[in-house]
C-alpha cells in the first residue's frame, strides 16, 4: 500500500526552480506491480501465441493456435450438436419429416442458409420467384408436383421444361387464335371453339384436353395449367405468341423460352436436400 503523502519530507533530486522542488517519489507500488505483471504477461503471450512477424510468416507460438483452427473447431462443435438431428433426418422419409413438428422446424431453420446459398438467386429469398423468368415456390401451382417426394426429386435431379416450337408447324392464323384462347382461359373466358382448336393442334397432348395441365405432368415436361391465373412466362398476348411460336428449351431456336433448373444431387447431401424440400414445401404450405 502507498505511503502517506507527506511532500515536505519527501527526498528531492536537488533541482529547484522558483521554490518548486523536483521530488524523487517512487512510483506507487500498485503501478509497479501492474507494470511487471504486464511484461510478464507479454512474454508469456509471445511464447504461447503467434506474435513476432518474420519475413514470410510469424512465429508460431507453443500452443499452435491459429484463427482458422479455432474457427474450424467451432464449426466442428456446431456439427457435433447437429449430428444426432441430421441422423434422424437421414433415417426418415419426407412425409414423416413434415409430420414431426420438432424436426420439421429443425429442417426449415437449417435449410434457411442452404436455400439462401443455392436457391434464392433465382427463386428469391422468400421463394417468390421472378415473374416471367423463374417460378414462384410460394404459390399453390406445382409444375412437377408439390409432394415431398417430388420436391426432393426436383432438387436432386433438376428439371428441364420442354415445349416444341410451333412456328411453321401450325398456321400463323391458328397460332394467333390459340394465343387469344390461352389469354381468355386464364380469365375463365375460354371459348369452346378455342378449346376445339387447342385439341386439334395437339396442345392437349401435354396441357390436357381441358387445358388444365394435370396428368401430363407425369411426363416431366412441366406443362402448366393454362386456365389458372398464374403465368409461367408472360401473360400478355405477345408473350403467349412468342411461347407458342418458339417453344421452351428448343435447340437452335434463338427466341425460345428457357426453363432449366440445375441438379443439386451432387452438390448437396441427401439430408440437406431433404431439409431443403421441407423448406420449399413450407414456403407455400405445400400440396
Amino acid at each position, binding site marked *: 500500500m502507498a505511503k*502517506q503523502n*507527506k511532500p515536505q519530507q519527501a527526498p528531492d533530486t536537488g533541482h529547484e526552480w522558483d521554490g518548486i522542488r523536483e521530488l524523487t517519489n517512487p512510483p506507487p507500488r500498485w503501478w509497479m506491480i501492474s507494470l511487471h505483471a504486464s511484461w510478464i504477461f507479454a512474454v508469456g503471450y509471445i511464447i504461447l501465441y503467434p506474435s513476432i512477424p518474420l519475413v514470410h510468416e510469424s512465429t508460431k507460438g507453443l500452443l499452435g493456435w491459429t484463427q482458422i483452427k479455432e474457427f474450424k473447431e467451432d464449426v466442428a462443435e456446431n456439427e457435433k450438436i447437429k449430428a444426432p438431428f441430421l441422423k434422424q433426418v437421414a433415417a426418415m422419409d419426407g412425409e414423416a419429416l413434415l409430420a414431426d413438428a420438432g424436426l420439421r422446424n429443425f429442417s426449415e431453420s437449417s435449410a434457411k442458409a442452404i436455400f439462401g446459398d443455392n436457391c434464392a438467386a433465382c427463386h428469391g429469398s*422468400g*421463394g*417468390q420467384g421472378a415473374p416471367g423468368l423463374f417460378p414462384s415456390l410460394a*404459390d*399453390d401451382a406445382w409444375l412437377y408436383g408439390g409432394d415431398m417426394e417430388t420436391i426432393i426429386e426436383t432438387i436432386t435431379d433438376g428439371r428441364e421444361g420442354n415445349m416444341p416450337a410451333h412456328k411453321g408447324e401450325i398456321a400463323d392464323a391458328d397460332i394467333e387464335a390459340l394465343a387469344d384462347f390461352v389469354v381468355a382461359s386464364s380469365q375463365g373466358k375460354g371459348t369452346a371453339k378455342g378449346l376445339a382448336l387447342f385439341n386439334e393442334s395437339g396442345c392437349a397432348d401435354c396441357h390436357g384436353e381441358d387445358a388444365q395441365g394435370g396428368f401430363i405432368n407425369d411426363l416431366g415436361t412441366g406443362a402448366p395449367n393454362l386456365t389458372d391465373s398464374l403465368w409461367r412466362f408472360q401473360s400478355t398476348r405477345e408473350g403467349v405468341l412468342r411461347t407458342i411460336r418458339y417453344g421452351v428449351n428448343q435447340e437452335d431456336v434463338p427466341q425460345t423460352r428457357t426453363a432449366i433448373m440445375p441438379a443439386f444431387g451432387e452438390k448437396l447431401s441427401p439430408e440437406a436436400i431433404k431439409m431443403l424440400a421441407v423448406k420449399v414445401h413450407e414456403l407455400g*404450405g405445400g400440396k
Partner: protein
Amino acid sequence: MSEQRQSKIEDIYIESHEWHVNTGDETIHAKRIAGRFRSFRWYASALWILYFAMPYVRWDGQQAILFDIPHRQFHLFAITIWPQDLWMLSLVLILLAITLFAVTAIAGRVWCGYFCFQTVWTDWFTWLEDKIEGNPIQRRKLDAAPWSTRKIRLKSLKHILWMLIALLTGLSFAAYFTDAYDLWYRYLSLDAPLVAWVVLGSLFTVTYIFAGFMREQVCFWLCPYARIQSVMIDKDTELPTYDVERGEPRGKLHNKNNEKRGDCIDCHLCVGVCPTGVDIRTGMQEGCITCGMCIDACDSMMEKVGRPGGLIRYASRKEMDGEMLPALFKRPRVVIYSLILALAIGGIVYGLTHIPPVELSVVHERQPLFIQMSNGDIKNKYTIKAINKTANDLHMRLSIVGAENVRIVGEEAQDINFQAGTLIPFHVFLVAKRDALKQERTPLTFILESLNGAKIKLEYESVFMGPVGK
C-alpha cells in the same frame, strides 16, 4: 490577497499526524467479546447457511431454486420465470436498492454490519483464526515469531479450513445454475464443464483472498455500497455513537488528583474489538460498518467499573444534541422510500401472479408480402410462435376476427397441440378473394383459445396484405 488567506502547503498537513488512514499496512486482530450485538451478528450470519443449503432443496422433484441458463428458465419453487418475464428483475433490483436506502436512512449501514457476505465470511474466517491461533495478543505474537513446527501447524490448519469454506462457497454458487447433486458428482469425477471450473475457481479465489486477507480493506477501498450508504446517513439516522458529553474528558479509572473526569476510562476496548480498526470516539467515519461490537465492549466494561452502560450506543446526531427525533412517518425520506418499496413489491407480486401461461407472437411473412394463388386468390403467410409455459400440453384453437373476407387455409391449422414448456414455430396461411380486399392492409386479430384445461385466451393484432389498386 491578504496575508491570512495565503496558506502554505505545510498548513494543510498540520493535522496529518492525527489522521489514521487504514491502508492495510497492519492486519487488524479484533478481540471477540460476547454481547447483544455479537449475538445478533451470529443470528444474521446464520441466514447465510441458507445460501449453502438451498441448492439441495427440492420442489416437485426439481431443484427449488435453479437458474437454468441453457434452457432460459428460472425456477423459484412453484414459479417458472421465462425470459419474457424478466421485466420483474428490474423491480427486484429497485426493491433491493430501495430497501438498502431505507434501512440506511433509518439505522445506518445495517447491511454492512450484520448481513453483508464480506462481513459475514470475514467473521467466520476470524472466528476460526481466533479458535486456532488464540486471542489477538497470541495472534500478533505468532505472526511475529520465527517459523517453527507449531507455527506451520497452526497456520496450515487455518488456511486449509479457510480454503474449505471458500471451496464450498464456490461450489454452492455454481449449484444454483445446474442440478446440485449432478454437479457434485461431476466435480468429484473431474468431469465438470469448463465454465463450472471457472466459476468455482473465481469464487474460491475471491472468497479466500477477500475474507482471509483483505477483510476490512474491501469495505474501505473496493466496495461502492459503503460509500453510497455513507452519503445516505443524515442527522436522524441511528448510528453507534460515543456520548462525548458523558465520556469526556476521558482518563484512567483510578484518578489520583481527583480531577473532574468523564465516564470514559480510556481502556481502548472499543478500538480493540472493532473489525475495521476504527476509534468510534473520534466520531462517525468511513471505516465504521455499524456492527455494534464497540457497544458490546463498552457496556461490558462499564458494568465492570460500576457505571451505567450506553456510553457508546445506537443514537442519532439529533438525539445526541438533545433534540427530539421526528416520528418515522414524518420523515420525508422514509415516506418516499416506503412508497417506492410498496410500488416495487406490488409490481413483483402482480408479475408473479400474472405470468401468462402462453405467450403468443405472430410474424407476418415479409418476402413476399402476399402471393397470388392459381385461382386468383391472395394468400398471406404467418409464422406463429407460441410458448406453452405450463407443465401440461395444451390443445388450442386458432382463429381470426376483424376481417370477414379473410379465412384460414386448412382445418388442421386451426387446432393445435402445444407441448408443455416448448416453443415450436409453425406456419399459418390466410387467403382472401382478390375483389373482396378493400385496402392494401386489412387489419385483423389472431385469437388463440384453449380447448382443454384452464381457460386461456390470447389475442395478437396483425394485418393481411393484398395488391389493391395494382
